């Protein structure tokens, strides 16, 4: 086997070519695990709210014990979808410039979704 040209330090840190190591993978799996719990909560919430009128929906969403897990769900889901879509882009978009644009667009979209949802929940919670 050919002798590796990587320095011992780089090999020990195991960060790989992108310099990020397994961070991306771990974020994917960690948010996958938190998503399970938070999405179960979310489905229960939506089922409970089905068909309810505005005042009832707002009265339930503004409760801290509803708003807090809902906010956690938003953070977990948007992180997960950002990482997941990046993998899809890197798999299928091979033109370098287009790939970078798509990855940037992915970040913009995930950030916009996260912020719009967080703002709305907080506004309802703070009595908006």
């Amino acid at each position, binding site marked *: 086997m050919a002798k590796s040209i990587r320095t011992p330090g780089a090999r020990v840190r195991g960060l790989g070519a992108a310099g990020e190591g397994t961070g991306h993978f771990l974020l994917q799996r960690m948010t*996958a695990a938190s998503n399970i719990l938070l999405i179960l909560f979310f*489905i229960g919430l939506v089922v409970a709210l*089905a068909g309810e009128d505005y005042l009832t929906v707002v009265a339930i969403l503004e409760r801290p014990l509803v708003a807090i897990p809902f906010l956690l769900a938003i953070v977990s889901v948007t992180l997960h979808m950002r990482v997941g879509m990046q993998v899809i882009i890197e798999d299928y978009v091979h033109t370098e410039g287009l790939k970078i644009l798509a990855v940037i667009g992915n970040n913009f979209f995930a950030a916009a979704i996260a912020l719009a*949802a967080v*703002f709305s929940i907080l506004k309802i919670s703070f009595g908006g």
Partner: protein
Amino acid sequence: MATPALEQKRPLSPHLSVFRPIITMVMSIVHRITGAALYFGTLLLVVWLVAAASGPEAFETVHGLYGSILGRIVLALYTWTLIHHMLGGIRHLIWDFQLAMDPPNASRLAWATIIGSVTLTILIWIAAYIVM
């Protein structure tokens, strides 16, 4: 980077289309498609939340849209997509512990994913209709 003409003409090795579809392969593809669909499906959630934060009129408009026949069909598909991707994810988490990786068990898990997602989706909608 421009691809040279010669490189574009190179024959590709046989790809997805030459294989007989098997359940693990189909579930793998569906997992990715449902993931991508959920990505854009978050818009449904955000529109609903922003409407609720905007006031009664905006909320009633969105409520009417989501409650229509077409809206319910979209939401039912969204529910299945979400559940299916979640069960597919649990399958991947099981594999992360190197469990059920042999072909018979992997196939069983794959069947459990699709059967489970359809069953749970129906149960969730029955629950929603009972609550309503």
